[in-house]
């Protein structure tokens, strides 16, 4: 059975020293030929199995990185298919770029757990592991879904939804007219549709061009700073940023209405949601409303809870601990430079396990905080999803597939094809965009036809 070829980043998405992009499927060798040039000008199709080759990875003419390529031909590989691994320098950006080049060359971004699934289906993994594989797929998908949902709340989600709405409306119009030609006429609709498609394509291209800035999906640990007014949230943020661990972006309003900053600590990316920036003086619960606060906190992978140790805990602190219950939290005992009223034990009593003393004013305790985050991350207590990177590539792939389909529609319009040909490719574009927000076509079209157009005898 011919299988399509899949690809994914196989190493954790941190800025480690080596990153691996794995490719598996019938076209693996074909694809590696396109993205890799061996120093010794060998063809990867001809080299023996289980050999390593030094050279450079390319996206078209653009050199991306120097790397070592391992070729493992089926059936003696993990998946029993032809497998190729690209070992590159471990920068997240480089890995992403190479994966994208591989996808461009014909691979499909792998679904969560797909390599393992293939290995199993091809008889490579024994029976006892099957349950584990199913659980893996299940949990990874849950996670991917969750990150997809996170996406949905942003501008991207809204845009995709509105573009899809436009597309489905046009398809429904065409289909209504085909279904009931005596009621609706679509003569001349091609011109109107062309305008609309050009407009949509412009928007989609914008996404693609800006995707590299991490705006399609922000990777990293979603971190929220909470604390009652004057606990020192802003100072903490400034301290974190002031240390300058490579500020990646500040993207006010692009993904959500709160301001976000990205910092990197030992190669781990933290996306800090600057709730402090929104309300310097006001009460969190009052100003933002419990619902909004809950929403932000729910989305968070890590919470930095700033406690002013110079004043007693109040009902506001109680409220906050209720809100963050069950989340991975580091309690930061701030103002360690002043006489403490609140002791570490008080926080332990409230159920906080990770406690770090800091003085934002005197910029003390930062290293301890970093160590804590590091430990939590490597223990797996705090995770962010590797899949997010893949999801990101998958999203880009979906947008670019949608663009291809829309191009085919334009082609059909140019060639003077009848309108029913338009809807085939329009629906493909609709479906592709649906992958981004986790929705499929199913009954959408039929529902749109009936709700928007008056049909029937």
């Amino acid at each position, binding site marked *: 059975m011919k299988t399509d070829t899949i690809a994914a980043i196989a190493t954790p998405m941190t800025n480690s020293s080596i990153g691996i992009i794995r490719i598996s499927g019938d076209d693996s060798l074909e694809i590696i030929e396109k993205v890799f040039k061996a120093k010794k000008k060998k063809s990867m199709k001809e080299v023996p199995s289980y050999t390593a080759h030094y050279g450079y990875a390319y996206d078209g003419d653009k050199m991306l990185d120097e790397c070592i390529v391992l070729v493992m031909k089926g059936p003696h590989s993990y998946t029993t298919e032809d497998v190729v691994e690209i070992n590159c320098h471990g920068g997240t950006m480089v890995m992403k770029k190479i994966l994208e080049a591989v996808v461009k060359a014909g691979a499909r971004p792998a679904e969560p757990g797909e390599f393992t*699934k293939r290995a199993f289906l091809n008889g490579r993994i024994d029976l006892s592991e099957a349950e584990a594989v199913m*659980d893996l797929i299940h949990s990874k998908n849950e996670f991917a879904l969750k990150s997809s949902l996170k996406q949905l709340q942003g501008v991207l989600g809204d845009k995709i939804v509105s573009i899809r709405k436009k597309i489905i409306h046009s398809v429904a119009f065409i*289909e209504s007219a085909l279904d009931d030609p005596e009621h609706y006429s679509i003569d001349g609709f091609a011109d109107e549709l062309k305008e609309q498609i050009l407009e949509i394509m412009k928007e989609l291209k914008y996404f693609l061009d800006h995707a590299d800035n991490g705006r399609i999906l922000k990777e990293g640990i979603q971190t929220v700073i909470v604390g009652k007014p004057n606990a020192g949230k802003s100072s903490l943020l400034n301290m974190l940023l002031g240390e300058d661990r490579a500020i990646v972006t500040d993207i006010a309003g692009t993904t959500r209405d709160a301001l976000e900053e990205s910092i990197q600590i030992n190669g781990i990316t933290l996306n800090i949601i600057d709730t402090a920036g929104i309300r310097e003086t006001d009460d969190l619960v009052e100003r933002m409303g419990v619902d909004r606060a809950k929403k932000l906190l729910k989305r968070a992978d890590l919470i930095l809870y700033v406690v002013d140790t110079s004043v007693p805990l109040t009902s506001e602190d109680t409220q906050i601990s209720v809100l963050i219950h069950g989340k991975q939290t580091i309690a930061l005992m701030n103002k360690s430079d002043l006489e403490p009223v609140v002791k570490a034990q008080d926080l332990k009593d409230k159920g906080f396990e990770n406690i770090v003393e800091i003085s934002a004013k005197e910029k003390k305790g930062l290293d301890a905080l970093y160590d804590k985050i590091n430990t939590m991350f490597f223990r797996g207590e705090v995770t962010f999803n590797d899949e997010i990177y893949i999801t990101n590539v998958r999203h880009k792939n979906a947008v670019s597939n949608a663009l291809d389909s829309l191009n085919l529609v334009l082609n059909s319009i140019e060639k*003077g094809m009848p309108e029913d040909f338009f809807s085939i490719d329009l629906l493909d574009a609709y479906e592709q965009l649906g992958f981004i927000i986790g929705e499929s076509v199913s009954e959408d079209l*039929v529902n749109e*036809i009936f709700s928007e157009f008056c049909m*029937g005898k």
Partner: protein
Amino acid sequence: MRNLEETYDVVVVGAGHAGCEAALACARLGLETICFTVSMDSIALMPCNPNIGGSSKGHLVREVDALGGEMGKNIDKTYLQSKMLNRSKGPAVHSLRAQADKKMYSMEMTKVMENTDHLTVRQGEVTDILVEDKKITGVKTYSGAVYHARAVILTTGTYLKARCIYGDVTNETGPNGLQAANYLTESLKANGISMRRFKTGTPARIDRNTIDFDKMEEQFGDQKIVPFSFTNKEEDIRRDQISCWLTYTTEETHQIIRENIDRSPLFSGAIEGTGPRYCPSIEDKIVKFPDKPRHQVFIEPEGEYTSEMYVGGMSSSLPEDVQYAMYHSVPGLENAKIIRNAYAIEYDCIDATQLKPSLEFKAIQGLFSAGQFNGSSGYEEAAAQGLMAGINAARMIQEKDPIILDRSQAYIGVLIDDLVTKETFEPYRMMTSRAEYRLLLRQDNADLRLTKIGHEAGLIDDERYEHLLKKEKQIEEEEKRLDHVNIGAGKEVQSLLESLGSTALKSGASIKELIRRPELNYMALAPIDPERPALPEDVQEQVNINIKYEGYIRRQMSQVKQFKKMEKKRIPEDIDYEDVGSLRIEARQKLSKIRPASIGQASRISGVSPADISVLLIYLEQMHHRR
């Protein structure tokens, strides 16, 4: 008291469009078949619109014909007017529609039914199904008579506990005042079948002699007619066609409806059933689309020898006096007399997810069902299911595997797959947009797609089969020949191109390139293709389409390849979804309920995600290892 007792192979309950196809298929396959109808006068009755075909429905009829069914032949005998819809669009959406002479349609079908070997037609109401050990054993009628059978096919249409309603008037009857079937539902429920209630409606019939046609636009049929049946040629069925007429509702119509909307039984709650969105009543249209200044009204003949005319576009369940007022507000109908009132009809039917793709009940072996009883709507949808239920009931008895058409083979496949896989909450109607691979499922190639299957099933004779093989060969050879035909930029060529509104050639070109130009086609280029053999029109048409749309067709074929992979992965009937770890609860429930036959079918169930499908694949593989 002694009751009558008889034994047949197959009992068909109902002689509508589904019942007739089912009964004919079984009898033609050599099985002793009895078909029950509540009235001998209602065989193949068309109680609503007086036409057969239309967008996508026309495809179904052609497919029924290609498989050896009767509907296409019957409408060819009894049509009043014929039209190919969407002729200016792509070939995939060309759809045949014919106005039918209702009475003649019914009479001709009755004649066929009465004169088919192994088939008995019987007036009588079936009140009970007889089941032993989850196996059907026969039926019982109102008189107490028992008919033993190895298979029973339920095609009760809109008759089960039917009620006809307009205004505050309710008649406990089936369509057209015919007797309803009031007992069978209870027996079905007692045997564990879950029932639901659907609704549909029909407009008034008015007297032709009271219509002012001068105020309407005449709607003619096509000059050149395409027969529904592949066994007919145009010259066999040519006739003088009878026109339809087009008029429009007015602001006054809408006013009348708005003022009386509270008198609709839909508002009073008298109607419980769910109606179809694609076939809204005129009051629905006014409420849902208040901005539309007018709606089309088609006045269509019900037959050649009756003055009844169908008011297409104005079905209603408003009270009699409101019906009069609203029809009178339509230009040309000012003095119209109503012969039959418009009404809504409610009936019992099933959620078809209780069926296998063969249309056999999952829970009762040998019990099949088809048509409106399965929650579909339309004569054509009914006939298509009836034919398949008939074929598969016969095959079950003959211990052969069922014939299941998939979504890439036929609209019939799409129809049945949708019905048995997706829960529908309104009567299901076929639409071309439901077919993913519609470019391949054209009405013009239904024979090429299905006649071999019909032959294998035993409903297509050898002569027709040979004819098909010959057609296939001719198409193939001609396409091959054209690969090598090049056209020079000579004078004759340029002038032909000019006369066809096409741009001149700069240098030579292959004829296939020319055929692909939108303004050109295979037929038109005959004068510059001197070697061309004389070929039948239907062969020329296929050659033309295959070349013209080659790129698109190829693309759909590769999609079909992907699709087939998933269809081929069968799920064992005895799978217990509780054993499959890691399935989400919703997916587990849906899968347990619908029990899909293949991974492909499973993936189309709403609420089953791609991750669930992966999990299922792995589970199946695991089972496979264990066995």
